[in-house]
């Protein structure tokens, strides 16, 4: 008795879904890749190495991403910047950067570990290759050019929508660069790769002035 009623309840779901699909409104299957489904903002697609608006690379070759990666698929080597023509701000830049996409589990821990938001993820996930070597993305494939365009291993790939490379996983940061306490825990988002879009933090003087203003 009980069994029958349970069965009936289950079949009701099947039936109603079936009817909806026939009607067209509840259709799940799409004509991929002609038609792509919407992806949530924080979708974890392939990575991109970002630059600052002035064209400097953000990556400082610190290997924190490599250290955080649970799949051990990132290989980074740092080198000293030539002070005359630095690649990144500061003393060090990443001169080797490789991700083995076959091993990557797209967990995004590298993005979280990165102190400079150099590595972020895009929405593109079409990366099938016919050999293992092509699955290793190097600086050539990962690093955006100075105009902010993100390269791809197969630029002519008809199956992929390369626009997706310009949609990034929003990244967050829990502390401000100078350690201002007020920024702690404040999440900041950006929907595209590249430069940060939030207002810069106020300078020391501005903050001092503001607090004097409070007093006065």
């Amino acid at each position, binding site marked *: 008795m009980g069994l029958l009623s349970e069965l009936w309840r289950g079949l009701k779901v099947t039936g109603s879904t079936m009817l909806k699909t026939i009607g067209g409104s509840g259709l799940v299957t799409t004509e991929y890749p002609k038609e792509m489904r919407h992806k949530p903002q924080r979708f974890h697609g392939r990575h991109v190495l970002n630059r600052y608006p002035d064209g400097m690379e953000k990556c400082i*070759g*610190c290997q924190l991403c490599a250290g955080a990666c649970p799949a051990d698929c990132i290989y980074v080597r740092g080198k000293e910047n030539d002070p005359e023509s630095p690649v990144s701000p500061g003393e060090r830049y990443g001169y080797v950067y490789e991700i083995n996409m076959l091993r990557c589990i797209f967990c995004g821990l590298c993005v979280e570990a990165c102190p*400079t938001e150099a590595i972020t993820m895009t929405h593109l996930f079409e990366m099938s290759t016919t050999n293992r070597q092509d699955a290793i993305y190097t600086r050539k494939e990962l690093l955006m050019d100075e105009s902010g365009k993100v390269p791809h291993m197969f630029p002519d790939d008809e199956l992929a929508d390369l626009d997706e490379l310009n949609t990034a996983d929003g990244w967050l940061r829990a502390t401000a660069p100078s350690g201002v306490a007020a920024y702690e825990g404040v999440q900041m988002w950006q929907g595209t790769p590249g430069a940060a879009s939030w207002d810069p933090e106020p300078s020391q003087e501005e903050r001092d002035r503001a607090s004097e203003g409070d007093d006065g």
Partner: protein
Amino acid sequence: MSEPVTIKVDGKEFEVRPGELLIKAAEDHGTYIPRFCWHNRMKPVGMCRMCLVEVDTGRGPMMVTACTNEVVDGMTVDTQNEAVQKAQEAVLEFLLANHPLDCPVCDKGGECPLQDQAMAYGPGESRFVEIKRTFEKPIPISELVLLDRERCILCARCTRFSEEISGDPLIEFQDRGNKTEVNTFPDHPFSSYFSGNTVQICPVGALTAKPYRFRARPWDLHMVESSSFFDTAHPRLSIHVSQNEILRLVGIDSEPVNHSWLSDKDRFGFEHVRSENRLDTPLVRRGGELEPVSWSEALDMVGNRLGLIVEESGGDSIAVIGGASGTNEDAYALSRFARTVLQTNNVDATMGEGPSAHFLAASIDRGLIADVDDADTVLVWGPDLKETHPTLYLRVRRAAQELGVNLVVIHPRVTGLDDRATATLRYRPGGGHELLSDLSDGSHEQVTSLISGKVVAIVGQASLADDPGLAESVAAFVREKAGTPRIIPLANRANIYGALDMGLAPDLLPGRVAYGPEAAPEPWGEIPAKRGLDTPGMLDALSEEKIRAVLLVGADPVGNSHEPELASDALDLAEYVVSIDTFLNDSNHYADVILPAAGFSEKDGTITNLEGRVQKVNKIIPAPGQGRPDWSILDDLSTVMGKSMGLGSPETIAKEVAAVAPAYQGISWDLLEWDARDGAVVPLDGEQPLTHIPVRAKGTKAPSAELLLHQGRVMYDDGVRLRNCHYLSRLAPGPVAHIHPDEAKRLGAREGVAVRVVTSKGEGEFAARIDEGTPEGVVFVPLHQPGAARLGTDPVVRVTVVT
């Protein structure tokens, strides 16, 4: 010793030695008190205040620094109550007030005590919003070390190290208050042979090493323990590797040997391991050119040819030179290969340098390094320890400076230890024996009177002009004077003591046994009866064409010789020369076949240091290309030659050694890896199979010439490993001649001018170095310098300014 006292730390009660520092006592009993400035091997200064704890000795709780306070009976200590935590947070907040947040680009990031302790004990947030002080980003303070003053937390570890440990006080605090900074003295670069240690002990990333800079982060390093192959004391170290490449070496605190210190040569000398000049494939000379061949082809060729020569002319027609650069297992394989397969006793690992093999291997009352700590007097009559035996140098220096041991230094010129010596004596190069007989005749009373009680005599060849037997005579003299002194005989090659212990000398067999056919180890079978030749003897026999084939194992008789033409002419006459080596060297020019060997960090095994301490060395990277350990090459050769030794693996060889070499009984890998992590001194039971009693030799006088040549080794020279190190190769002084200012005036030489140095055996141009440390009437020329002419051993010299 006085009664232990009882203290209570965080509610746990334990007994400790009185006079012990609280921080150490607590740590030994499982309570870690955070610290930055305190270091186990240096005096406390109480600079950083990180070790604040609350102590109650009956007068109520007080906040004190655990690193400067000694334990007192009945003391109650609280290391983590609220007050202490608040103090720790405050200290860290202050330290971070100026410390930059550049951890991601800092070499120390990931293994930084400041990072770790800020996480563990810090407040998490800073109230300081002021702009941090900034300095010019790293400034080089020496050829090897960079200083980033922004990061310095003024803990005085580096400055104390240079003052207390190495004795080169060239790095100091400057300025006062908020402006305080460490720096070198203007015009004085931090030129220390030990500068790398400051990088290791700096608790932040203020001091970084150039060879390691930006090359890795701590989390991608693999490590393994091993020992250095440069210093014959074999300081213990840890090899840090990433992607099959050694990135740095870090000293390990081994109580009997190196107290965690390493000389820069031991620390940065690893660079040769991945040099592009490493041999990586067997080479055969065809039509004058070296051509790569396969192992099987090379082994067949060598085996057949050597076999033929042994068959035709007997083992006496074969010379085996070298064997001191590998492990004990390599040396044992070579010793057995030479005696049983090649049927020859012409084996010599000393290359004819320094004291006799019997004295080095089996001197009676052999001293330990640690013996210097509680000696009454340490006598150093040998090479300048700072230049040649840095680990021993630091120990002797510490003994004289901190432990009140009398130190007597006898050397032709000033040495690195003179400033701590109770007495020093100088003698003219070549005049050692003369001075020795003066000493035994009762002159220099103030010096000889010190040679009594517990004496440690560190003896070796001080100057090339000295008779190599002088060291043994000195030892004999000290025994006459002081009864049973401890004797540490010095030699120079990497694992020379291990090689001799494995029988790589014409008159020795494995385990410190005097050579004799009846003394052959069991598995060896029959061995030749005839006494073999040492290196000079073999070279002579080669010139007389009595020897047909030479096997060089990590040996370069031409490059090493003070009269290279003799050696090269001799090798040129050899019919067949086979070389097993890691690099091409000057002698390989004459080699018919060159076999690539595995080197440091590329093979497992054991090595024996100057006190007879056996330590385990470990493999962590593969040898480049097809390089293989010596033992396995020799094992395969023995098979080709139809007398297979069947050695198996280094571990089975070590077992065989423990079974057949009397002094090595009881030494096993398990012992060295577990129970005796600091190594074990052989023989374990202290009973020497062969006891060599030093004998007093009759010596010659120093020539009476006005100017005499003193040649001695210095830290950096043109050795093939150093030559292939990117950073260290630049540190060799090159062709220089040190002369006293007055002597220079007489000669009309100024600093840096070219002078011509002429001896009976050679001549060449050298740059004059005006040097108070070299006595008048003496010219000091560092040995084996790149680009320097060889001058032979005769001390009579003429020096003229090149115009």
